[in-house]
């Protein structure tokens, strides 16, 4: 067992510091150090996307990265999406369009959709489907997730400006 290292990761605006084994997966850091359990584990081959988070503006599957690799980075999880009790349009869209059932894939789906809309504020249906293709859902058949993302894109375009968390 290699010796532990001190790392610092800024998660949803707060600095989290811990001594960790180099082999600790980022997802386990997120779930255990600050106790942010919205980020889930659904597989062991980085296929399912339940653990998807935003790291320095980019989507990563946090089960496929060591926590030490995120040392000094800024990270956003599903818990950072709403602000001051106001839901992000994506969260609202998932509720309005019935874009979730068991809820297990939802945090990862929200993260992927979030980055998709940052890059492409008015995606086509096909672009949405590709944008969430790294995330598996076993319940919804994706159709209402697509609608949820469209709901958010429309709402954000209509100028009902939601202050997006600074992730860059």
């Amino acid at each position, binding site marked *: 067992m290699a010796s532990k290292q001190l790392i610092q990761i800024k998660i949803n605006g707060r600095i989290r510091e811990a001594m960790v084994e180099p082999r600790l997966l980022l997802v386990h850091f997120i779930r255990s150090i600050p106790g942010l359990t919205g980020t889930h584990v659904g597989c062991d081959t980085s*296929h399912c996307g339940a653990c998807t988070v935003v790291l320095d503006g980019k989507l990563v599957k946090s089960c496929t990265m060591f926590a030490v690799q995120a040392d000094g980075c800024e990270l956003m999880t599903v818990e950072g999406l709403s602000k001051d009790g106001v839901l992000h349009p994506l969260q609202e869209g998932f509720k309005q369009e019935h874009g979730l059932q068991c809820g297990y894939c*939802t945090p990862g789906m929200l993260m992927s959709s979030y980055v998709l809309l940052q890059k492409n504020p008015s995606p086509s249906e096909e672009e949405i489907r590709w944008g969430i293709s*790294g995330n598996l859902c076993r319940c919804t058949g994706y159709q209402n997730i697509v609608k949820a993302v469209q709901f958010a894109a429309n709402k954000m375009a209509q100028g009902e400006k939601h202050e997006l968390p600074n992730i860059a």
Partner: protein
Amino acid sequence: MSCRTSPEVGGMGHAIKRKEDLRFIQGKGNYVDDVQLPDMLYGQIVRSPYAHARLKGVNTEKAKQLPGVLAVITGEDLAKANLAWMPTLFFDKQMVLATGKVLFQSQEVAFVVAEDPYVAADAAELVEVDYEELPVLVDPHKSLDPDAPILREDREEKSNHIFHWEVGDQAATNKVFAEAPVKTKVNAVFQRCHPSPLETCGCVADFNRATGRLTIYLTSQAPHAHRTLFAIVGGIPENNIRVISPDIGGGFGNKVPIYPGYVCAVVASLTLGRPVKWIETRSENLQSTGFARDYHMTAELAANKEGKIQALRVKTLADHGAFNAAAQPTKFPAGLFSICTGAYDYPTAFCEVDGVYTNKAPGGIAYRCSFRVTEAAYLIERAVDVLAQELKIDPVELRRKNFIKPDKFPYASPLGWSYDSGNYEAAMKVALDTVGYDALRKEQQEKRARGELMGIGISSFVEIVGAGPAHTFDIAGIKMFDSCEIRVHPTGKAICRMGTKSQGQGHETTYAQIVAEELGIPAADVTVEEGDTDTAPYGLGTYASRSTPVSGAATAMAARKIRDKARKIAAHLLECSEEDLDWEPGKFFVKGAPSKSKTIQDIAFAAYTNMPQGMEAGLEAVDYYDPPNLTFPFGTYICVVDIDKGTGEVKVRRFVAVDDCGNIINPMIVEGQIHGGLTEGFAIAFMQEIGYDENGNVQGGSFMDYLLPTAVETPVWETGKTCTPSPHHPFGAKGVGESPNVGSPAAFVNAVVDALSHLGVKHIDMPIAPWKVWNILKEKGVVN
């Protein structure tokens, strides 16, 4: 059905948004792996790399010496407590941890407990197991061969045969076949697949030495039944066991059985007096927990030359793997497979099923399915298409000719069921009109002339869901009723507790809507709570589309009991007799004088503050509902495919699903269930398979090779409905969550076969991967 309540009240028929969503979209769900307890330990299972091997020794010394390891439990250790084996839910037993030998790859051999999950994984690597390989039996067709190795040495019967089950009139069926002018036959394998909910199985077992109580946080679709089984098998007083099934990340039948990991965690917690968490990995989930299907079926239809069906004969071989760990009602070794006569009217049928052991993971669970209904619906809908093809009759016309007519309900099926209600042709007509069937057939002809491949597949399925009735149905002896308890608080708000357990179906919303419908209390004011055996009334849980037919019915009945008491209180408050009162959702009023009324909220307050003399305080009721019959949802699905000749890839161009589940509680949630079920049906038809090589190595043991569709592959679903209420259900509902998974595989396969039918293709086994289609095209000379 038009709504009787306002959108604000949100009773039946309103597409109100889900109450449970707020926590999930904010990452505040509470799944089993989110449970963190002080001093918690972590379990890791050591698994067999071999499918069949003698266990020569398990050396745990090195593992025990690793710092942070508290215990390593083996099968021999469990045997001392008589826990090395446990009963399955179907008259068999299963090894918790192996003793003597292992019978499938990834079988549980030892359980390591450590302070940290990473240390537990390290220690598992240090457990040294000495195996002696034995001949492996993979093909169920060879299970009964004289030279087949006998897998289950623990059984008295030295055979790999588990059961023979038959239903129907064999002699009469054979007679019809002997005389029938037309006979057709299809051999169809419904491949082994796995429900694979996105959350794997797991638990936290927490034995508190100070109180003597054992709390088990469990991924359970049936927490009450599981509590009873832990009590019976473990010898723990049932009042000292509390099972909490928190948020469940999908179930689909995978979370009905009790798995070795749960038992090991409980044993470890009892032994160490600390909480023990065990969460399986995806690979463990796919390789060891309840698989579904693996039915090797033959269906024969006898008919006249016009295509009128006269009889059905079915013979099936069921591969159960190493242990018969099916989770189904005890009188039905092949579940409700005898629904295989389908939506068609003929008097004679015979069906037989033989179950066998192989060196594969144990199971035979119902994957989004009411106990083998999926296999049955697939088989009959395939067979009917083959008959149509052989008689050169349009598959729509053949179905229409054979449908049970609406005036024949309740319909006594030849294999013993009483279908409650149905109007099959009406649902098919909506589907045909929506898809534009005639134009599609014309297009297909034109395309064929140009050498292009296009197919149209139809499936007109009937389901049988919502078990009980209690006189026929039980799981491990416990009758299949279900329950609801409603308490109305003084301020007119309510809490509703159930014997079922949502895994994403939206129970917190739909049960509240039933209360809203029956009592007029807004759904927003009704809290629904499930999954805690200390607080909820006893029930059998959620699977087999039974929540709405059974617990939903219990909710309505409990609400009606409350309404009866409310009427007495209203009469007291309005100083009139009960007979002078009329009800509309939310209030009692004096007949002919509607301004003289008392709302349910007024009445609730009075139930605690101003009840009539001699009446008990409070406004609550509990109902244990025993359904008089099952419900029989149905529908017609039509699939249109185009096939790429160069690659063999099948593209689903359109899919129209018309469902009839009777009266609907929440149309938004019903549609969501249909989308999800269709997607799983699509995955089964084209992608999902747990295969094994000749040495018993799992070929679908991770998401690398057990393929699930992403948003890119998944087709766009078009839904429609007809409404034929169940005559015996309190509010005319049937079940729906499984219909799309039951009805759709045949539609997909029928469409692909239809595209290739002019080449003489009559059947292709699922999953229909591009290579299979391409091989057929090559064989038929369509491509080089």
